[in-house]
């Protein structure tokens, strides 16, 4: 560190810690969304720093769609054990009962029921007044428009035309009964910032980000990993081993892998720099239609 100046990452870290503390101090029942991905890992690390030596003063919530990678679930449980935070796992039981899956019901209906509706159920059940998420403004165009403290009405809906002006770091955290806030402490980070921070802080992340031989099938140019027997194979389609990794993680049938040899953090960062495609290219749900993320967010998606 320069004697009188913070580096770029130090400044981002301090800004995020300040936001996390503001949540803890201003809300009665905050919760932190934990999606097990790299952004969640950074968020968790920041939260541990923000409240040290106290424990993280709110629970972490994972919305389990039942189609997450097996390795993600294992990583989640191990992390909860290692750090001793309170972990709440919620699955939409109505969806389980109706056997909702991305193959028969399509990605958008599946996402709505197993992610958006599930999230709303979990937030209502916990009566949470603030939900902290790891969204970044560089991810997607409608996310670039989101405030750090983003107001939701009693139906969890976002009104992009009526956002609270957010001056300096003076956040208006006040809510009326039933309303809630979505809070994005790493709004100002880029994907590259996240990776360099993970590297310099040695933050544990799920092995799915590192290149390994994995069983995949190729569908319209996207590599889908066969994580379990539930993935229906087309006639004549056989999974083959390829050295792949994931740049972003969601439900396994909806997340494209990339061909890569980057098996450790330094290689990932070097690969990222050279990349000519965006992070969410592998996210099938983003490209449903123009403005689909915005629409999902208005309905309560993160």
């Amino acid at each position, binding site marked *: 560190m320069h004697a*009188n100046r913070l580096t770029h990452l130090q400044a981002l870290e301090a800004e995020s*810690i300040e936001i996390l503390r503001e949540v803890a101090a201003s809300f009665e029942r905050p919760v932190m969304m934990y999606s097990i991905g790299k952004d969640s890992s950074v968020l968790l690390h920041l939260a541990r720093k*923000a*409240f040290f*030596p106290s424990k993280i003063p709110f629970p972490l919530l994972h919305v389990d769609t039942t189609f997450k990678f097996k390795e993600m679930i294992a990583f989640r449980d191990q992390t909860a054990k290692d750090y001793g935070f309170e972990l709440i796992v919620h699955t939409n039981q109505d969806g389980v009962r109706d056997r909702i899956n991305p193959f028969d019901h399509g990605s958008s209906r599946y996402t709505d029921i197993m992610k958006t509706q599930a999230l709303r159920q979990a937030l209502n059940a916990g009566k949470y007044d603030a939900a902290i998420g790891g969204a970044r403004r560089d991810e997607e165009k409608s996310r670039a428009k989101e405030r750090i403290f983003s107001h939701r009405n009693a139906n969890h809906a976002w009104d992009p035309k009526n956002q609270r002006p957010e001056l300096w770091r*003076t956040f208006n955290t006040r809510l009326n009964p039933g309303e809630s806030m979505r809070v994005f402490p790493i709004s100002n980070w880029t994907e590259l910032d996240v990776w360099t921070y993970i*590297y310099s802080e040695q933050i544990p992340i799920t092995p799915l980000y590192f290149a390994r031989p994995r069983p995949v099938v190729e569908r319209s140019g996207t590599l889908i990993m066969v994580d379990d027997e539930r993935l229906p194979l087309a006639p004549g389609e056989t999974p083959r081993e390829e050295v792949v990794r994931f740049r972003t993680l969601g439900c396994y049938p909806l997340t494209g892998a990339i061909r890569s040899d980057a098996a450790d953090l330094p290689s990932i960062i070097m690969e990222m720099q050279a*990349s000519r495609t*965006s992070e969410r290219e592998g996210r099938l749900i983003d490209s449903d239609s123009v403005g689909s993320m915005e629409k999902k967010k208005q309905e309560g998606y993160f």
Partner: protein
Amino acid sequence: MSAAMATPDTDLDLWLAQQTDKSLLRFMTCGSVDDGKSTLIGRLLYDSQQVLDDQLASLKKESHNRTVGDEGIDFSLLVDGLSAEREQGITIDVAYRFFSTDKRKFIVADTPGHEQYTRNMATGASNAELALVLIDARKGVLTQTRRHSFILSLIGVKHVVLVVNKIDLVDYDQATFDRIVADYRAFAEPLGFKSLAAVPVSALRGDNILTNSERTRWYSGEPLVPYLENIDVAEDRTAEKFRFPVQWVNRPNLDFRGFSGTVASGVIKVGDEVLIASSRKPAAVRSIVTMDGELERAIAGQAVTLVLDREVDVSRGDVLTHAGETPEFSNQFQARLVWMNDEPAFPGRSYLLKIGAQTVPATITDLKYRINVNTLEQTAATKVDLNEVATVTLATDKPIAFDPYAANALTGGFILVDRLSNATLGAGTIEFGLRRAQNLTYQSFDVNREVRARMKGQTPRIVWFTGLSGSGKSSIANILEQRLTAEGRHAYILDGDNVRHGLNKDLGFTEAARVENIRRVAEVAKLMADAGLIVLVSFISPFENERRLAREIAGDVDFTEVYVDTPLAVCEARDPKGLYKRARAGEIKNFTGIDSPFEAPANPELVLHGAEAEPAALAAELKDWLEL
């Protein structure tokens, strides 16, 4: 954050070192609708090769039927991400974009030009070090250009680049450019920007973005991107006075009590003597705690936890400072206000004010003037409408620690929040504390109310009598005081008439004077209670608002409102001082009950019926009720 790299990797570490050395410039774009802000940012992203292949492909697909540049791309689509924005072709809300060049990293806030969304422009300005003010070369300086520039100066953006865009549409004409720049400089001169450059640009075609354009050979300055890469906007916040607003009290167990927050300015070192702004109590910093280990010093911008060497009362909202460099601590100040809500701001209305981690009720006490954004002229006004800027005085319910905004944006900028809807209504920048409140500090003494009360063997309290003239307030208070004194208690009566002979003899009977009358008496009553006395206040105090004010001033002193409810006819018949007779004769104006109303208390602690019992009996009833 720990600097240790566990696995040295030469290429990567070299590259990381380069990344670390890159400075970050946070800038914004503003200007009127349709001047091409979004197109300019799209162009900056595209030219700095931040637009990735998959994004480019979808962009080209979406660009058909739109105004496109030489590359066949509508660059504005890169930033206008909301459906409503695409439909209307305007920017509604701030978008934050990221790009970097070999020299610098940039976060750019693309802010709306539409007047309706000026609040979002102010939002973008509050975190920007530099602003690009865009002008459509065909239109020149517009109202919105002036409004935005004025808000920039208000929020404290010190560096401005005037981007005269669409220069291709005026045939790259130098005279047009020169005229616009001269117009703007004349307007902006009093705004006091530290630097002001002007660049002729075509965002659509890419002229003077990365390199000097062949089509504007007459322009000798730098192109936009090199200018942004080279300009020095760094301000050494560590050279300023130390300010540490306490955000969160960190209490994992009984043995650890730390104060978590971000150093707003200055430097703090282990062993430094600090002062708590609210109580003026001193303490020394025992340790600076982080998860990465204890630090010897923390600088502006760092988020840390301070542990002090002694038990002192510090809570969220308090500000820690170095002794001798304390911020102002007062409940009245003058500020500039940018109003951001459809419902106008009115003097007298109560809002919630948030500054740092402090939130307090606040009232606009005076609207000094509104500022015309076209001429920067000050005009009189009775309210502040949406997107207007005004200079006001504000009073907060309790003193707050602050600095003038010019000295420190983080301890001098505030927001006003609606008490019912919780909407953010406006933003303000503090100019200075008001003279009457300035230089006043709350001295903390060791002999306090509790000690004095113990000496007197009683609980200090304020008993506030309200009721019409002649209702029996003073008679009851008189008897009560006699009995208390006889029993060895210490009491004192503050009587309306008596106070008006001395302390308040400069006050008349207008509404404003009555408010001031009550305020002073409530303050005196509080001081007396602080001295350990039982204070009996016998005041007509006809308005609910004033009685609420008195209760608020009393703070944590036990406050009992006693309504002596005696019908007007009875009071008038008694007329002990002959005042009703004179009021009826028109000799006294604004007399309560005659030509000025009495607002009966909605929720007094006790009602005494002055027409139904003698004062002695009522005094006894009150004494019992108070358990004295």
